């Protein structure tokens, strides 16, 4: 067991956990932040996506011991970001979600895309969102919502 100081959504947090614990489970069980989801545990689905020092990161495979001082932003905090808010609003206005379980990860990936490529093409969207699974299959509406958010941010 070791103590780690984390910055999550701008706030300082301290946890005492086994160093091998993935960031995902630190967020969910130590910090009770369940917006970041467990879908597979092997970085195949992206439901666990957070931003680590601004980079979309799959928290299920990152042991807490490798996080260091890098600031963490989760779905609970992404709305404070202009692009994050635009993506969430677009997701709602385009009625993207079905079961919704994958959508935290989808949104975090989409925000990373738009912050880097504000006017993405279909090919950009397909590449950047290419590793996020949606079992319900809401991909058609995800594409539309990203375009809507992009227009809003322009």
């Amino acid at each position, binding site marked *: *067991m070791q103590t780690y100081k984390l910055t999550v959504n701008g706030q300082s947090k301290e946890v005492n*956990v*086994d160093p*091998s*614990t*993935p960031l995902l*489970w630190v967020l*969910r*069980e130590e910090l*009770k*932040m*369940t*917006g*970041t*989801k*467990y*879908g*597979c*545990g*092997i970085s*195949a*689905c992206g*439901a666990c996506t957070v931003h680590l020092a601004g980079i979309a990161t799959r928290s299920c495979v990152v042991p807490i011991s490798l996080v260091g001082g890098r600031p963490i932003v*989760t*779905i*609970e905090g992404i*709305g404070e970001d202009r692009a994050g808010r635009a993506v*969430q609003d677009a*997701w*709602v*206005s385009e*009625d*993207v*979600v*079905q*079961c*919704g*379980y*994958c*959508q*935290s990860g989808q*949104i975090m990936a989409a925000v990373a895309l738009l912050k880097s490529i504000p006017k993405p093409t*279909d090919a950009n*969207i*397909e590449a950047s*969102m*290419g*590793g*996020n*699974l*949606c*079992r*319900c*299959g*809401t*991909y*058609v*509406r*995800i*594409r539309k919502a990203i375009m809507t958010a992009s227009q809003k941010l322009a």
Partner: protein
Amino acid sequence: MAVASVISKESGLSRRSFLRVSATAAGGLIVSLYLDSSLLAQPKPPAKIYPPDAFVHIKSDGGIIIQVNRLEFGQGVQTSLPMVLADEMDADWSRVVAELAPAADVYKDPVFGIQMVGGSGSIAHSFQQYRELGAKTRAMLVAAASEKWQVRPEQCRTEDSVVHGPGGQSATYASLAEAAAHIRVPENVPLKNPRDFRLIGKDTRRLDGRAKCDGSLKFGLDLDLPGMKVALVAHPPVFGGSPKTLDDKQARSMPGVVDIFEIPTLRKGTAVAVVADKFWTAKQARDRLQVDWELTGLGKPDTTQLSQDYRKIAATPGNVAVSRGDLKALETSNPADQIVAEYEFPYLAHTPMEPLNTTVRFDGDRAEVWAPSQFQTFDQMAVAEVLGLTPDRVTFHTEMAGGGFGRRAVPDSHVQREAAVIAKRLQGTPVKLIWTREDDVQGGYYRPMYVHRVEIAVGPDGLPAAWRHVIVGQSIVADTPFAAMLIKNGVDETVVEGIADTHYEIENFHVSAHQPTVNVPVLWWRSVGNTHTAFVMETLVDELAARAKSDPIVYRRKLLNPEGKNLIAVLDLMDEKSAGWRKNLSQGHAVGVACHECFGTSVACAVDVSIENQRPKVHRATVAVDCGRAVNPLTVESQFQAGMSFGLSQIVPRGAITFKDGYVEQNNFDGYTPPYIADAPTAVDVHIVPSDAAPSGCGEPPVPVISPAVANALSHLTGKRYRSLPLTVL
């Protein structure tokens, strides 16, 4: 009526005004189980009077909470059923909040007689019910107002949660709620004329949309209770196995591990439960278990062996599902005028995005369960049975689910049983049982493997002169409470649906099925039998069309009989809406067409497909649907856009569960891979046939048509016929 415990929401509701739940489910008899859709035409049992106050709570601040008698797992029912009720009630939609109802007699599906979601029946079976509930609630509010104002109810009108009297009086529903609760529930209330609908039929965004986008909505897996422990179970690698030796020393030594013990599991097997303070501890502890499994004497399924065996069996007639006319033409016709085809379909896993989970707390004389369950009645009974309680002593909360597709509707309630056994041992402590993704992929309850053998004699007119069809594969409902209703003459109807009841005019038609016993637990996978039957029918019909040098849409119109009029209508609509792009295909693209009716809904689609990097790329799909009255057209559109992407699970390269010497070969999304965005259609336009008919379902109908449509397009591109899924080689 005894008052059961109120659901533990923190809204401070008075029990009397909110929930009166009848405690009549003791003994667990299933009443009025009508699953065969043809039986729906028969007179229903006497209509229950559903107490509106079990479904609607009007808060003093004007908020309206509507109980949904279904699990919400993506299909949008927590918006569409409240829409129905709120419309008849003339409620202010902006104040409506939906909740998922707990397990209780009053929330049972009116047709099936159990609380459940499945069979695409949510709207179909509860549309009338929720209309009546809304109308009755309105009537009671109007009665209260008219009594207060000493006017006649007919003199009042309602709008957006306000009753307006003839003399300019008005009162909000909130102000009338208390008085309305004392009004006797009217038996018969007139329903709205559909032209007066304000919500039904209009695109309405989901009520749970925002909460699913900001991380605030809690699913079953997110539940957190004081003192809660997490349990993982090490299951035998072959169904029915048990530990020969168990060394848990290393596991027990980990800090945070609470207990490790054996529990019964499915197929009379024994598993090992690990209980710990948190998930990661439990997982590490389970990884450190040293188990030597006893597997002798167990059936060891093997895909290669099953494939050989099934093909051999398919050459012989099975139990008869359909026998009309005669098959002489098959004997007399030239082999050149015959199509002989063998199709093979693998086991499929559902893998809903939210892993399976259930939380149980056992307190000795009662228990509480939290589960994202599609089968609340069965699951509640199962937990009660394990804990030695009557079902009414088990409070069963329905949690929001991250997908289901049939996986959370298990007749033997095996996940809930495991959780209950563990909770029993840890009496007083809530235990959350989680199946990891590996447990899920390897844990069984798959869509069965099937082989079809089809022999068609093609007549001189290009239409089928005779058709022999043999299907081999496990029965889904055998050894479940559904067996009596759905197995006829040794044939499980869910195996042959989509073929036996086809609307294609096949005068000389013989359909039979063999249902072998295999040591693999199986289950319905979104659209059930239609998953494989529609693929066979729609690719064969396309092949017949090609042989007759006929356009595939024209051919289908010709082949469909009058009972298929809804299918003809959707073909026409699809034809009209896709004609533009079908005539302007890019180089290297082809169109594929398919149509299918299931669960009362007719669907036709056309897809634009090319081959890129050796994979089918679906650029666009045009879909036409007849689902009767579309309660929420936005939901219908969503279901078809997303459902088609789901349907493509069947064709993506790693879309198969395979067995080798008894072991499942895949264990996570790396080996069993659902469609990603690149595998899904880029654009899907959905067109709904305008209709006043009673609503039918949209949960499953999107799934069967997409795979054959894509295969048909590929056949145009490659000249090959595709007989086995997934499509690994084009």
